[in-house]
């Protein structure tokens, strides 16, 4: 981890600690630093701008009320903690509501989009590692894992999209998850 990244991580952790003690200025600062990243995630998953804005608002209200639950000693960076809340809320919303599901084109775009230059938030090392491990998987498997992650898709829908039987899709993803775990831990 380079120095700038380490400082950015420490800064966001400290910011969450201040929010836990109801420091409103810290919440505003956190919003300025992270809302574009988190809104990007919400919009990618939900497509609908108004729905993504609702989820973003919900994410920051959750952070305002639960910032004390963030524990930097558990090895999770603040931005990963925030991204997890945003991604999970957006997927919940997608599955609960009648929001449009990410089109195949958009889901494919996820595969192609090159990472942004702005990497102050998280080490590039871990992203590269995940990308490298995903690229070692069978292409259908890697695509299915990404589509599930961003699209809230069930096994049934993944199977239909890939045009393969449900049982095949299940075994591809399950084997892929185990391969991924081994690769990431090696």
């Amino acid at each position, binding site marked *: 981890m380079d120095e700038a990244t380490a400082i950015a991580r420490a800064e966001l952790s400290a910011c969450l600690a201040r929010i836990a003690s109801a420091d409103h200025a810290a*919440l505003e600062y956190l919003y300025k630093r992270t809302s574009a990243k988190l809104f990007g995630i919400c919009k990618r998953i939900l497509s609908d701008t108004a729905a993504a804005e609702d989820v973003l608002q919900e994410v920051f*209200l959750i952070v305002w009320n639960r910032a004390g639950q963030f524990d930097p000693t558990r090895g999770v960076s603040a931005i990963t903690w925030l991204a997890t809340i945003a991604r999970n809320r957006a997927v919940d919303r997608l599955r609960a509501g009648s929001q449009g599901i990410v089109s195949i084109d958009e889901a494919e775009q996820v595969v192609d989009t090159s990472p942004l230059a702005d990497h102050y938030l998280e080490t590039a090392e871990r*992203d590269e590692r995940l990308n490298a491990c995903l690229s070692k998987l069978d292409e259908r498997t890697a695509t299915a894992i990404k589509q*599930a992650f961003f699209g809230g898709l069930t096994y049934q829908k993944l199977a239909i999209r890939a045009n393969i039987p449900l049982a095949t899709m299940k075994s591809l993803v399950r084997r892929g998850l185990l391969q991924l775990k081994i690769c990431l831990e090696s």
Partner: protein
Amino acid sequence: MTESERNVLAGEYVLGLLEGEALKAAEAQIRTDANFAALVQNWENRLMPLVEIVPDLVPSSLVWNRIAVATRPPAVRAPGLVQRWLAGFSKRFYAAVAALGVAFALMTLSFFMHTPPEAERQIAVLNNRDGGTFVVAETKTTLVITPHNVTLPAGRVAELWLVVPNHAPQAVGLFQSGGSLNMAIPKSSVSGQSLAVSLEPPGGAPGSTPSGPIIAEGAFTIL
């Protein structure tokens, strides 16, 4: 179940692939089985870097306005309001004079309409960024809301909210741009209560929080 099966199940849960009974069972297991909860956490940490490939996107500034209204404590709001008022003084001068005139008329009216006079009354002047105001006067039993120099977009109504720190705002009622309106005072209203007005579709916000932009905000002052 073997350790690798448990691991796969945790991964499937994080990817959102589980449904129905399997989903309920996994959720229950997260609550009761710390080891399984740790497997889930590990998968979240492993997969979350995927979000790094999503481009940043700047949200509308209205999102922060909504968050600020829902979270800002009244102690911080009051000076902020005064500062903003002073900062925009020259622009707001005529609107403010007019608003106070309306407020005075309302208070005089309510003085004659209610006997005996109330022990404590409050008034709030909510500034709209286009220079308009909403005057909210609290009488013994009602809130009298008078929009002044405010034009609402076609097909939209205004909704008044009580802003309670650390809680979702509480809807008070809907009104149109013309004429003043009486509403019942919500039981949870307190002295110095913070208020906000949002733009909503006819019938008001569909959920329990403002769905449209906050167009004015302010706090009661005790007279």
